[in-house]
């Protein structure tokens, strides 16, 4: 999708969803340290501890909305799982800084927006723009999150931080062809 506006169907979760024991079961992928992500396995286990139907029913571009302290105790695998499931944006009441970084570094924007869970219901359509911080609900209500910084937008739009460094190297003329991206589809 071009531009920075994302529009998608909402998967709504409650407060204090764990990253390693909620978004994913980290123990199930912990043997993968030091290897490339097992993206198919991460896609298959994403949110199944909370919503067993998630992997079968999630669609490209869907949006995750969650309550306070979302994703506490998360390895980067939790962010990758959401990204490879097709989630375009995550909007939370609150979460730790580390999750925002880890997700952004694999191309998934997380916006912090107090009041979001009261404003939207599961399955509704929602619009969000990390560049402006503006979030618009199906009923037309507008909420405001802090806009991403220019560097964060660069990382997101490159598909991740390594992808950004790679694209910058290519623009400097260091290497012509880009190999396959680490993760499929933005």
């Amino acid at each position, binding site marked *: 999708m071009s531009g920075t506006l994302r529009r998608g169907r909402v998967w709504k979760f409650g407060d*204090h969803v*764990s990253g*390693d*024991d909620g978004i994913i*079961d*980290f*123990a199930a992928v*912990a043997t993968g*340290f*030091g*290897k*490339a992500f097992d993206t198919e396995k991460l896609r298959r286990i994403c949110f199944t501890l909370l919503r067993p139907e998630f992997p079968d029913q999630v669609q490209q571009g869907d949006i995750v909305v969650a309550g*306070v*302290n979302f994703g*506490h*105790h998360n390895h*980067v695998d939790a962010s990758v799982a959401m990204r490879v499931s097709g989630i375009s944006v995550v909007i939370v*009441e*609150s*979460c*730790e*800084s*580390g999750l*925002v*970084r*880890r997700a952004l*570094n694999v191309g998934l924007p997380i916006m912090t927006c107090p009041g979001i869970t009261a404003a939207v219901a599961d399955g509704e359509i929602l619009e969000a723009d990390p560049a402006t911080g503006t979030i618009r609900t199906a009923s037309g209500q507008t909420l405001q999150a*802090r806009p991403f*910084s220019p*560097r*964060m937008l660069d990382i997101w739009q490159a598909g991740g*931080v*390594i*992808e950004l*460094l*790679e694209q910058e*190297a*290519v623009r400097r003329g*260091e*290497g012509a062809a880009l*190999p396959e991206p680490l993760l499929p589809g933005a």
Partner: protein
Amino acid sequence: MTGQTATQKIIARAAGLERVGAGDYVTVTPDATVSMELNWPVQMADMKRTRITRLPRPDKAVIVVDHTTSAAMGSAHHVSHQRMRDFCAEQGITHFYGPGSGLRHLILLEKGIARPGVFVFGDEQNIASIGAVGALCIPISREVLVPLLTDETWVQVPRGARITLTGRLPFGVTGRDLAQAFLRDFGPTDKLLQCSVEFVGPGVSTLSLDDRQTVLSVLYHAGADTGLMAVDQVALDYVRARDAGRPWQVVQADDDADWHVEAAYDLSALEPMVTVPPEVHGGVPLSEVAGRRVTQATIGSCAGNRLDDMRAAAAILRGRRLADGVTMYITPGSREVYGAAAREGLLEVFSDAGATILAPGCTTCWGYHGQLADGEVCISTNQYNYAGRNGSRTAEIFLAGPYAVAAAAVAGRITDPREFLR
């Protein structure tokens, strides 16, 4: 204009700015960047993609093998160890610490890399423990590759949280009990999210430097980004013995800084705590779970592997034996701790009691050693207690301080350690 927290002043200096405000996005040049081995193969593949072949500042890189203290049969870790060693030699990185050296949390302090006012990018949140000498660790996970390759990356300036400590820990109570009380109080809330927690007050100086590290090492589990403690003479003496002439500056918060959270703890009111599974904020007074049988006891992790923890364990284990049916693993946090424990005769105490001493590293805390079978019950100074952290999802992990863990190992059940100390 309001004042700034110590954290904000350290970030402003590293960003080349006069001042920064909570929530600001700034680009920071670190004084050091620390990475461990688990993600090394991926990081090296990532480095290739960036076409950057030379680290601009190899002198700032600290590369530590701490999760895989030895490469076990069937693992590929020995290859990582070799590649890291070769990479550090090629790049001129002198701060390379191989298997068995210890946790990077401890090494940063012991080697004088973490000093007051120093800004460190770390790959793990628990490295906030270096705040015991007033150094700041901003955790950025495996993104540490970015500052290693470019000498900078972005940071969102944390909000300030000020915790005032008063009083002195009572007999048989350690910094770990404060840590667990702190997690009990803040873990279930989102108050500390995106905060740096700064500990001040007369109680700070009554805690040993080891206990200060333990408290700071758990802040992440309450949602905080990082934290540090007021720097006193004990911390300064420690730093001066290790700085080798490298610069540092004590940074103090302004009293009128914008404190998002303020709270206070009277250390003298604390008691032995046990955290019940599966949440790290499930701390209760030990008496509530006394009598629970245990099959494994472990002392180690960045929240319980320093010399004070070894001394506490030995105080209980000296002249005693583990209960039948209990396995115990004890992991000194670094070669420095291991050597000191040996010189004090503590390792002999552990061995005579029937405990197994593991090489310095993360060992049981992430399940590299000491896996739990179905239905087992463990009591540990480790960081986590969620289902499946150390093997079976049906095993239970209780978290506690070193006295309580050692007492449970001897009694075969959770019991008040003060009975063994009198």
